[in-house]
């Protein structure tokens, strides 16, 4: 339940499809987080590189963690360019009761930011500039220094 798309996400369609996929699964709580490109520092948009093999194994580990709490996680992310006010990221948790969903979405989104193998670039003019200062070194970095 990890979906990658070229370009911006169709948020309304994805949120609807996920809701319908679980319509009879008897989950009482569905919480979703949508990340949208903000206008700041005069960027024109963002662009993303994804390394899928590690993203998949990272996501599978989270899915197991969620399953142990009776929950499931869904995630969508953009590859390539996403312009201002378009959305690049959706994460969602379905769980029987609300506490699990409220806590898991927070932990999942934070770990996603810290660990998921995705690289962000600012789009300015014709350039694609790696957003190093807003990026986070993965835990254990510096092994080869």
């Amino acid at each position, binding site marked *: 339940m990890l979906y990658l798309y070229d370009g911006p996400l169709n948020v309304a369609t994805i949120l609807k499809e996920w809701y319908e996929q679980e319509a009879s699964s008897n989950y009482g709580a569905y919480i979703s987080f949508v*990340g949208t490109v903000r206008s700041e520092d005069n960027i024109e948009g963002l662009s*993303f*590189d*994804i*390394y899928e*093999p*590690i993203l998949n*194994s990272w996501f599978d580990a989270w899915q197991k963690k969620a399953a142990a709490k009776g929950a499931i996680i869904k995630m969508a*992310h953009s590859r390539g360019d996403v312009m201002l006010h378009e959305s*690049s*990221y959706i994460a969602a948790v379905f769980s029987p009761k609300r506490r699990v969903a409220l806590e898991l979405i927070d932990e999942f*989104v934070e770990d*996603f*930011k*810290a*660990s*998921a*193998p*995705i*690289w*962000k*670039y600012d789009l300015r003019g014709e350039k694609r500039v*790696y*957003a*190093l200062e*807003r*990026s*986070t*070194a*993965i*835990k*254990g*970095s*510096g*092994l*080869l*220094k």
Partner: protein
Amino acid sequence: MVRVEFLGPIQKEPLMLEITNLKELASILQEDESMKEWLENCAVAVNDMLVCSREIELKDGDRVALLPPVCGG
């Protein structure tokens, strides 16, 4: 041969190296001035699993990847 890949923003072509562990890879990459800063902030995966020790043995056909700081979302 071990294939070494540089992910995301690192502008470097993959290498095919005759190495048997990550220490040897570290020695080779430390000689490349353009890699100096990346070695400070990159994580390492062997066959798509993140590792946190340089003692890991490498064998013919293994794949090593360097992962610079991430920022999805």
